[in-house]
């Protein structure tokens, strides 16, 4: 019996050991190199390596925008602050991005000013982080806003340090301008393209089955539109095709080829669209910030267009809503 017990005790202690693995890690020392500074200046992306070296850099704010609740609190990039996409960046009663007042208060709390370098990252391949970048862009925070290439997934996979304490930053005195319409397409814009009244391209980044109309929403997601299919004239490149298996974005050359195959080469204005406008901000970021194409994101997306009365729709699959 005692021998048995010894092994059991040893095992129980062993079982608890993995929990300690992430507990104590030294914060990295800031080594801001000239090369690193260039990387942040030139590209809309920063690498995990660069970020770890520049965690304490002046004028840098790191912001996590994740989908799953609790991931930020249980371990985030040291110094990062949390933004909750479905309350902080939107109006919760009407369907809109955060109002000017609300955004001003948020940016001040995060210590973000016009010249602050903001690194956004999150789970799900930076899905909502890119959406955050799109909201920030409308309030004039464009060139200084970067995505962490690979997002949370890559940072964690490389076993870089995480922190559970909340950062304390000095508030800024940012005052949001009126939101710029340059990054956002509205229903009327999309309808004009659908009716061929305007020569623009619509990039639909949903799955092929949603695009063809076989399904109205991805598996497990509520059907919020009562028509299936897509906006006439749009082309389909699922958003995740822009991402490597490790979560990083493909190279600009690869991205150019990917979108050129669908006829999108930046020669015409582009509108990105999906179901609710969040996944399409990822493609918006890729096309506008990485490739430099003229792009607006249509956040109304299929849940607005697919519910509109009297608009042209392409429904390749012939799915009838509510039909048996």
């Amino acid at each position, binding site marked *: *019996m005692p021998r048995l017990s010894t092994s059991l005790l040893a095992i129980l202690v062993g079982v608890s050991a*993995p929990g300690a693995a992430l507990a104590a890690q030294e914060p990295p020392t800031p080594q801001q190199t000239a090369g690193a500074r260039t990387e942040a200046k030139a590209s809309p992306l920063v690498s995990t390596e660069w970020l770890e070296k520049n965690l304490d850099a002046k004028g840098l704010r790191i912001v996590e925008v994740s989908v799953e609740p609790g991931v930020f609190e249980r371990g985030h990039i040291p110094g990062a602050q949390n933004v909750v996409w479905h309350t902080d960046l939107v109006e919760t009663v009407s369907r809109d991005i955060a109002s000017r007042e609300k955004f001003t208060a948020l940016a001040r709390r995060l210590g973000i000013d016009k010249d602050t370098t903001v690194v956004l990252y999150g789970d799900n391949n930076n899905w909502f982080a890119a959406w955050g970048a799109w909201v920030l862009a409308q309030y004039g925070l464009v060139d200084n806003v970067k995505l962490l290439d690979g997002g949370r997934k890559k940072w964690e996979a490389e076993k870089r340090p995480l922190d559970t304490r909340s950062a304390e930053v000095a508030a800024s005195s940012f005052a949001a301008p009126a939101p710029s319409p340059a990054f956002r397409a509205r229903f009327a814009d999309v309808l004009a393209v659908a009716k061929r009244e305007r020569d623009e391209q619509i990039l639909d980044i949903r799955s092929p089955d949603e695009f063809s109309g076989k399904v109205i929403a991805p598996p497990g997601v509520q059907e919020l539109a009562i028509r299936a299919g897509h906006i006439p004239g749009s082309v389909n490149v699922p958003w995740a095709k822009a991402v490597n298996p490790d979560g990083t974005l493909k190279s600009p050359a690869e991205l150019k080829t990917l979108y050129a195959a669908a006829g999108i080469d930046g020669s015409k204005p582009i509108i990105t669209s999906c179901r609710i406008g969040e996944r399409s901000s990822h493609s918006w970021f890729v096309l506008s910030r990485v490739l430099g194409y003229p792009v607006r994101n249509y956040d109304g997306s299929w849940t607005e267009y697919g519910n509109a009365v009297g608009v042209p729709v392409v429904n390749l699959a012939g799915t009838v809503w509510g039909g048996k």
Partner: protein
Amino acid sequence: MSGPVAERSPPLPRRPALALPTGRELVRRVAPPGIALGLVGAALWLSGEPGGSRLALSLTFGALFGVVLQRSRFCFYCQWRDFLVAGDPRGLLGILAALAAGLAGYAVVLGAWMPDPGGTRLPPDAHIGPVGPVLLLAGAVFGAGMAISGSCISAHLYRLGEGSPTAPFALVGTGLGFVLGFATWNPLYLVSVADAPVIWLPRHLGYAGYLGLALAVLAFLAWPLMKRLPDPVAPNLCRGSDPLRALFSGRWPVWLGGLAVGAIGTLAYLRVGPLGVTAEIGGRARQAAGAAGLLPARLEGLDTFRGCATAIREAVLTPNGLFVAGLVLASFVAALASGQFQPARPRSGHAIRGLLGGLLLGWGAMTGLGCSVGTLLSGIMAGALSGWVFGVAMFAGAGGTLWLGRRTGLLT
């Protein structure tokens, strides 16, 4: 091998000198380290998989929780009954110890995560539920289910590892009770739950204020219990000089188990999520009921509440599923190693009480968005008023049912 699970320490096994161990003895020697090694191996394998560290930790915390529950007989109903029937307050003091330790732990964690509790935000995935008449009803029905089936859901899980003849029926009944709960959810939601306020006490009192008040309430509850403590006898821990024997034979005092529960609750919240044992049962019940066409087309507002979420599982391995698996297996290991694995052939009484009590447990846990662990323990620790309300209703329901059952001769 029938009869109730041993609650006193069995005599220490004597090792026959130079005699070959019997088959059963061999199993008792080989199985515990074997299963424990398997658990460790599974946790290590999971932690190596991409995104698997959360799963590995869930399994680990579940296993630790199972050992603690089994070793200290941390069973809400048994302790409540010990007090009501035998006048022994030690078990209830153990539950209060768990709450006190967890309250302090959560305050430390929450203070770091949300330095200002005053805003409109709630701490992430903490079990803070709506408070209203439906919660009271859920707690009381859950309590009745405890009295009829002999324990709450978490205790049935650890007793499954002890070979209890009632636990399998109670857990099947719990699954059915969840389906019943889904069927009655929509009317209850529309009539009452939708308007019930979600009250997080630290928002109104601050962390220190809530911690101080909650500890004062626990002290107030503990005071009369302390006066009824039996005369001190040599506790199990001091028997003999071998600390391993103290760990693996007899039972731990409940207060010790309670402190461990508070610690595990805090650590689990810090790393994975609040303790809870019904999310997986509820989620799988919802999946099965959906497949069988027994589910309402839409469960109004259910997925917007915190608690033991019953979202339909897509993955085979989920954190809560591994937590429950770890709990049952580790309890089995602990029971086997301490000679408390005493399987009994179920009789019809076990089946009827298990199924009926389980049905009430399941309905109460679904409607109350968790059980004695998810809503009561994790809720109170996180500062949810819903935890306190559920707790009061649960103990009242269990006590009332026990009283009624003893008067009618149906319960002992």
